[in-house]
């Protein structure tokens, strides 16, 4: 008998690792087809107005060019907004490429060149001549802010600002200490390393197989089917080269490539350029105002938080920005508000911890300001205001080990060595600063299904339309199935990343492991139940035993107390003439539980910065991120998720900023040289700690999800450390040299 093997909680290498280090893992633009055509997009060079004329004659005459599509010859597609609204769409009218002559933002796609080669398409795109009628535009949120409005229709899945509570004005008036401050954040751009691409394989009768860069194959499949009224579409996203939220919604290259393939009845590939990716979705430009009042002991009396975020002219994109301030700390008098301002850009979109990365930056900076105002250690201030209950929802937490995050994080970091006074710590000519912040994110379960198949040879297959965008989905699903059947991990075959597999949500919100992982777990349990029932009913030795007293262990059906008859699963299946035992597991939110409980992941982030004041250079010397996220399925890939979030947090704090020229309404730094994302040299030491957190309420496997929590709080902790080093409070991201030196 094989020895009992444990997989869950073990640090396992990625099961797709070999494919990725040998270049064998194939991404959306890497599938071949006979007589494949290539596309290249022409984008608008004005931010508002209309197209008066597009002259494509020169481009059409170039060798290899097959067709040029513009708004004048786009074929018929659905008129209904609902067909264009994917699973994650905000309220409004989704953007329709090549729909009309109207220009709503700089970088809007206005023509598609299709040619026999990539180079021919690119060359021809350069000589498509466009005559515009220019209209006034607005990309400056400081000007647009004057017209801010509360979104009339709320975005599904995004809670509106919490209800006000207590008497805010009186509590603020009575406060011994006050912080009133404004915070600003520029646009941030996802910039996954893989370029957005779709390869559309065309077969007779408009049968399409589409390799698309997306976080949800079924979401993309439903979009294409609805918009083009097709009934034989399959979308594959077996490997996704990062996305961070940018791949939640179907992107315009998908629409354009399908449009061209249907019209030309040929297979088409359209891969966007890095520049074009700066025009699809971004973390919205945000202005925030916070007022906090505390008594003489630092206990919060009052909290007021307002945020205004940029959105496009055609959709009301929304995030939960201010909500975190209502649940992070105990505070009985509070008010929250959230508005939008329209700018001439594409609709912003979810980017790693949407809303939380933004709102918690302001809250945790303000808490740091309060700690200095009240003369209380920043960590002690947070402990004094620890929330034991979610006051927004008036619910209990399923679990909350944030205290443990504070304690273990502080100890590993050496927080006790901090000198309280700003500018009091030095190392040579560098100022040293310590800062910390807390982080919060939802621990959600979404509806998901997974099929698990136990084969006669004891191996197992897992099938679900989940995605792995670098998150480790392949690996953790293999672990869960291997654990259930006590088999080596390489005896599990995981099939994900295709729309014809059992239903899975888009990969987002940190819900994949909890949702699909639970579904796999439930399917495996159902298979075991089926095996037990089979033994119980058809094998004489088991007839007198109650099925509740039986279990499947190490490939055998036997009594839980270890006495009595046993039969191997293989023998059982052979006797039943079963080639395979297959069950589908379904997971989803537990509505009954949710009436009483709510669930979050938590973190405590500790940062040391070094600042050379003469040069204005701050560098992040080390970060300790202590995470409470329920059960950790795979400490190796889990740690990587947190490292990734922390690194993106360093980018948010120190580098990342879409620089608009408001005169032209254009993002000027639309490339990876001028929009700086952290490089290897920017990242020094990062330590990740997972604190113990047992949670038997959040979902059947006790997992909370890790995709977002790593970034939350990082920018605030860095800014707080810069304050501690320099005595200079920075409230506008990113903390670039000009702000530090001024």
């Amino acid at each position, binding site marked *: 008998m094989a020895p009992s093997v444990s997989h869950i909680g073990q640090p396992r*290498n*990625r099961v*797709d*690792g*070999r*494919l*990725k*280090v*040998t*270049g*064998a*893992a*194939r*991404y959306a*633009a*890497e599938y*071949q087809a006979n007589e494949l055509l290539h596309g290249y997009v022409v984008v608008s060079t004005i931010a508002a107005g209309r197209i008066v004329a597009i002259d494509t004659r020169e481009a059409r005459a170039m060798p290899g060019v097959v067709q040029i599509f513009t708004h004048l010859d786009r074929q018929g597609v659905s008129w209904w907004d609902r067909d264009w609204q994917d699973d994650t769409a905000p309220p409004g009218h989704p953007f329709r490429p090549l729909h009309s002559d109207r220009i709503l933002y700089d970088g809007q796609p206005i023509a598609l060149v299709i040619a026999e*080669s*990539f*180079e021919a398409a690119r060359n021809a795109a350069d000589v498509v001549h466009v005559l515009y009628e220019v209209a006034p535009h607005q990309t400056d949120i400081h000007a647009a802010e004057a017209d801010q409005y509360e979104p009339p229709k709320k975005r599904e899945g995004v809670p509106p600002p919490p209800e006000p509570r207590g008497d805010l004005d009186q509590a603020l008036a009575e406060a011994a200490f006050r912080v009133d401050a404004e915070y600003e954040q520029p646009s941030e751009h996802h*910039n*996954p*390393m*893989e*370029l957005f691409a779709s390869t559309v394989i065309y077969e007779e009768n408009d049968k399409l197989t589409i390799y698309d860069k997306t976080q949800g194959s079924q979401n993309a499949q439903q979009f294409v089917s609805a918009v083009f009224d097709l009934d034989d579409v399959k979308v594959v996203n077996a*490997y*996704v*080269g*990062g*996305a*961070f939220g940018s791949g939640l919604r179907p992107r315009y290259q998908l629409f354009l490539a399908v449009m061209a393939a249907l019209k030309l009845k040929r297979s088409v590939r359209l*891969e966007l*350029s*890095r520049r074009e990716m700066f025009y699809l979705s971004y973390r919205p430009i945000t202005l925030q105002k916070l007022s906090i009042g505390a008594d003489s002991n630092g206990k919060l009396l009052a909290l007021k938080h307002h945020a205004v975020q940029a959105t496009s002219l055609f959709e009301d994109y929304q995030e939960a920005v201010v909500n975190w301030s209502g649940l992070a700390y105990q505070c009985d008098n509070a008010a929250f508000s959230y508005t939008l301002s329209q700018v001439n850009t594409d609709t912003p979109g979810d980017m790693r911890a949407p809303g939380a990365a933004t709102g918690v930056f302001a809250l945790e900076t303000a808490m740091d300001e309060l700690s200095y105002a009240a003369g209380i250690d920043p960590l002690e201030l947070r402990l004094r205001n620890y929330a034991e209950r979610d006051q927004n929802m008036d619910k209990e937490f399923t679990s909350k080990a944030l205290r443990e995050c504070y304690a273990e994080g502080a100890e590993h970091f050496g927080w006790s060595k901090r000198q309280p006074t700003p500018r009091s710590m030095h190392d040579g000519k560098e100022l040293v600063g310590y800062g910390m912040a807390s982080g919060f994110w939802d621990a959600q379960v979404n509806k998901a299904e997974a099929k698990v198949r136990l084969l006669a040879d004891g191996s197992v297959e897992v099938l679900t339309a989940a995605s792995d*965008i*670098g*998150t480790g989905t392949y690996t953790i699903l293999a672990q869960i199935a291997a654990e259930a059947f006590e088999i080596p991990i390489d005896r599990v075959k995981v099939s994900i990343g295709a729309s014809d597999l059992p239903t899975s949500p888009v990969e987002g919100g940190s819900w994949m492991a909890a949702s699909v992982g639970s579904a796999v777990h439930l399917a495996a349990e159902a298979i075991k139940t089926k095996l037990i029932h089979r033994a119980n009913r058809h094998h004489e030795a088991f007839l007198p035993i109650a099925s509740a007293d039986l279990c499947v262990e190490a490939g055998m059906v036997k009594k839980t107390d270890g006495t009595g008859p046993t039969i191997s699963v293989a023998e059982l299946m052979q006797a039943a003439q079963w080639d395979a035992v297959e069950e589908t597991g379904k997971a989803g939110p537990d509505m009954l539980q949710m009436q009483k409980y709510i669930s979050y992941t938590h973190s405590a982030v500790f940062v040391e910065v070094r600042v050379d004041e003469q040069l204005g250079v701050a560098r992040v010397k080390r970060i300790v991120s202590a995470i409470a996220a329920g059960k950790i399925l795979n400490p*190796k*890939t889990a*740690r*990587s*998720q947190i*490292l*990734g*979030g*922390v*690194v*993106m947090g360093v980018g948010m704090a120190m580098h990342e900023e879409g620089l608009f020229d408001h005169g032209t309404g254009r993002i000027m730094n639309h*490339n*990876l*040289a001028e929009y700086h*994302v*952290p*490089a*290897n*040299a920017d*990242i*020094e*030491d*990062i330590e990740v700690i997972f604190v113990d957190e047992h949670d038997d309420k959040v979902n059947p496997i006790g997992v909370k999800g890790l995709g977002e929590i790593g970034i939350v709080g990082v920018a605030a902790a860095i800014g707080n450390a810069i304050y501690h080093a320099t005595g200079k409070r920075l409230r506008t991201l990113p903390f670039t040299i000009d702000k530090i030196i001024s």
Partner: protein
Amino acid sequence: MPEAVAPETGTHTISLTIDGAERSIIVDPWTTLLDLLRGPLGKTGTKKGCDHGQCGACTVLIDGKRINSCLTLAVMKDGAEITTIEGLATGDDLHPMQQAFVEHDAFQCGYCTPGQICSAVGLVNEGHAHERHEIRELMSGNICRCGAYTNIVDAVQSVLDQTAKAPTP
């Protein structure tokens, strides 16, 4: 370097040894080595992340040196020996750098990984990096948006340590 030019079409016939296989290829003068690899040659292990030499995803080794294949016109490399990510392993045996990347979980989505690994092999060949800060600096031409940098440094360091321990022949 001798190369054949077809006067009517302007195409060039060049010879390249790619991952050990010598091939004669007809290319347009404006085709980059990256587009040649990913397109006509179907070697999609080499990635396109920016096409501007800013991200390093397209890094390959030419005669053992790391270069950005997106900034290299294929016609410039007539006669060169090119190693891509697809040519690093020996049969089923991964190159030590590939194995180190797996062991240290030095990637997540895997898209920058081929460029990171080729770059790291080039870095070891150069012999300039010994300490972690040198690895960080000399690997900064390869962006990893998933943020696996500390694990990448661990992986490269482990290979450097193995190399240092190995007896010199």
